[in-house]
């Protein structure tokens, strides 16, 4: 095939969470610019297996940028060089023939490496578990059109809810903070009328759970740049405000305001 690329990959290999890892260098050729980054890894892995070497573990599932399973640091950038794009949607035409690509797993104390490029992101689930829901037991919801939601509020809530939970924000953050993730989840529900009853307790619980696992935001804005869904930093500001308010609100046991 014409127009194919030859690349040098420096890939982080690590057998398990407690073992020492190292970079391995692989040469790979015949890569079409129309391939996705993960398909390039599929080719690499087939080559490795054919040579009797264990393939590189790299997570992915939907490969259409919505499930949030994939993600690694590509040349020092979370999800690679293309903006607003998850690793699976990154295509090789963004690289040049002869490039060296350094591929590393997400790094954060609370994202231990399971193997190679796969990390454990379960602390994000712990944050949701602590309050990322509206308590509405099945069957108890009122008619869907009973509470009108201003279009702007619904749109804004959607912007927050678009988060795919990939963890790129944590990986890109110089402090390994999960503030963008948490804020997006908190604000998705805090912005909607349905979410008001639990607004203050939710904010308090989720923020404090987040702080058990992750660092503190210092307003760099790297998370937003890394985010495949471009979640705005505004939600962090809203959450900061809601959190300090919640300390007062929860003391007074007032649900309102």
């Amino acid at each position, binding site marked *: 095939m014409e127009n194919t690329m030859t690349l040098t990959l420096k890939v*982080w290999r*690590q057998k*398990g*969470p*407690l*073992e*020492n*890892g190292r*970079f391995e260098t692989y040469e790979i050729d015949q890569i079409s610019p129309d391939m996705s980054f993960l398909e390039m890894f599929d080719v690499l892995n087939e080559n490795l297996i054919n040579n009797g070497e264990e393939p590189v573990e790299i997570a992915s599932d939907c490969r259409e940028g919505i499930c949030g399973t994939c993600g690694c*640091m590509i*040349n*020092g*950038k979370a999800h690679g060089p293309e903006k607003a794009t998850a690793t699976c949607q990154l295509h090789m035409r963004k690289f040049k023939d002869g490039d060296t690509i*350094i591929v*590393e797993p997400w*790094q*954060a*104390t*609370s*994202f*231990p*490496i399971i193997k190679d490029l796969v990390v*454990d992101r*379960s*602390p994000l*689930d*712990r944050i949701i578990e602590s309050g990322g829901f509206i308590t509405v037991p099945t069957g108890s919801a009122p008619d869907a059109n009973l509470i009108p939601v201003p279009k702007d509020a619904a749109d804004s809530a959607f912007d927050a809810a678009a988060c795919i939970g990939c963890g790129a924000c944590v990986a890109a953050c*110089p*402090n*390994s*903070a999960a503030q963008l993730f948490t804020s997006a989840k908190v604000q998705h529900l805090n912005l909607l009328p349905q979410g008001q009853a639990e607004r203050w307790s939710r904010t308090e619980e989720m*923020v*404090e759970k987040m*702080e*058990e*696992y*992750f*660092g*503190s*935001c*210092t*307003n*760099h*804005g*790297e998370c937003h*740049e*890394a985010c495949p869904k471009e979640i705005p*930093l*505004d939600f*962090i*500001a*809203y*959450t*900061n*405000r809601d*959190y*300090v308010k919640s*300390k*007062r609100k929860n*003391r007074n046991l007032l649900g309102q305001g």
Partner: protein
Amino acid sequence: MAQTVTRKGPEPIRKKPKQLPFPLNIYQSAIGRKWVMAVSGIVLLGFVVTHMIGNLHLYEGPLEIHEYAETLRNLGTDIIPRTWLLWGVRLLLIAAFAIHIHSAYTLKEMGRKANTRANFADGNKKYAASQDFIAANYASRTMRWTGPIILLYLFFHLADLTWGWFSKDWHLGDPYNNVVVSMGNIGVAAIYIIANIALAVHIFHGTWSLFQSLGINSPKINKMRRHIAAGLAGLILVGNLSFPIAVTVGLIDQDNCEAPCGLTAVEAEEAKE
């Protein structure tokens, strides 16, 4: 050998502290701490701006700057003894400084703990490929350097102009003279210039950041946040740099002294008569 892997997921790296009574519990969380940092930042910012504007009296002359200094000491004398209010403000500023520094240090520590690299051999850099910062600007990444620079500079500045450690020509109560004596030295002027650049850089990120930390956020304000931050930083930079430059180029000079050098302004008044 098979690796033993815990299936419960990673343990928390920080225990949730036992809740203190309101409002102290705000300071127990990182977000609350950032809020406190922003509020103390505003206090310090207020001081820096006021200090800069007050210092403009230098351009009026030695007597006027002296009178301004006296006015500060006399604040509130109608009700409380002389200098008490000034000391009150000073204590407030010291407290703001202390809490600003403490929160900055502890937040950074928290980030550091959350940020360890798993079993990487080389150094403590987060990623081997030099991490390509996109949004984090120079100002935001250097807060932890500009902060200590400002602190050191603060001590130097106090020692230099308030306590007069460095010069026998320093005179209590003659700020004009003291400024000229100090900044007349090109090295000292350079220190002032460098420190104030650091201060402006610090204020640039700090001001932008405080909107975020306090959650002051609306589409109307958002567009202005960078401008406000740049404007404030620029104002302080221009104002504060003007003093060492003015001294160096001779705009502020002993020649402008209507009173003989070494006398207090009061003595000078008397000498005139």
